């Protein structure tokens, strides 16, 4: 494994942690993307504008990445749309039922040494690993 394969993920992680940490330090908010999205689309939470702005920033940042390093995005996603719809529904329901996702529990929760988040992370990583095993090694392996 070469140096950039180790350093780039670390650097990316530091930027994610920095962004989340600054959101807390400056605005007092937890950078849990599922919560930010949920709040923005439900429109029932007061002052949704910062959420919409954060999401817009995600997309703007994405555009920058696509321009500078398009290889960071997948070129082909071979499963048919219903597969993605099913996965999306599960991620949407699960992240809200469980009060967080990889950013909320994984980054912010673990960063705060939250036992609740540790339980969540251990659960979703384990289940996801089993899911990958089933979908990639048992049911007609896909990339």
């Amino acid at each position, binding site marked *: 494994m070469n140096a950039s*394969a*180790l350093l780039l*993920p670390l650097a*990316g*992680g*530091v*930027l*994610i*942690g*920095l962004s989340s940490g*600054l959101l*807390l*330090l*400056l605005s*007092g*908010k937890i*950078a849990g993307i599922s919560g930010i*999205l949920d709040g923005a689309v439900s429109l029932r939470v007061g002052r949704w*504008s910062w959420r919409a*702005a954060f*999401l*817009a920033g*995600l*997309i*703007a*940042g*994405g555009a*920058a*990445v696509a321009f500078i390093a398009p290889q960071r*995005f*997948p070129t082909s*996603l071979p499963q048919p749309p219903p*597969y993605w719809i*099913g996965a*999306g*529904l599960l*991620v*949407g*329901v*699960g*992240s*809200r039922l*469980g009060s967080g*996702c*990889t950013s909320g529990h*994984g*980054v912010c929760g*673990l*960063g*705060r040494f*939250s036992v*609740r988040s540790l339980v*969540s*992370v251990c659960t*979703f990583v384990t*289940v*996801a690993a089993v*899911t*990958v095993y089933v979908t990639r090694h048992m049911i007609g392996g896909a*990339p």
Partner: protein
Amino acid sequence: MIAVLVAFLLGALFAIGLGIGSMTLPAKIIGFLDVTGAWDPSLVLVLGGAVVTYAVMYRMAIGRGRPLFADAYVLPGQNRIDVPLVAGAAIFGIGWGMSGFCPGPAIVALVTGKTEVLSFVAAMIVGMWLHDGIAAWRQREASAAANLPVTGSADG
């Protein structure tokens, strides 16, 4: 206004971090989760970098007592490990394992305009609405039950 601008810039920074860490590539996530296959440790490195950085900044934030541009920190109040936490994590885990996408990278990947990503994000939003709707309904039912008038005899 500052809150909106700050949020926008931090969202962009978050996305750039995801991109640099290649977390916008489902194959990288699947590679990490594929414990019996050719294992890709990228996600651990990304998470490690993120958690350590956040932990330091969290300490700084708590030490300050209040945010720079807001009145107070809005932190999760829940401490219990309950069924919704674990069930939600499991359900999320299946979707994440199927797709290699979680909310952040999926939203960032919208810039590709790919049908699969659009479908995923749309379905994710629908899933959130579904959960919120059911949760709100259950809360209304619970309130209604708690507010039922006492009906007279103990044998009711």
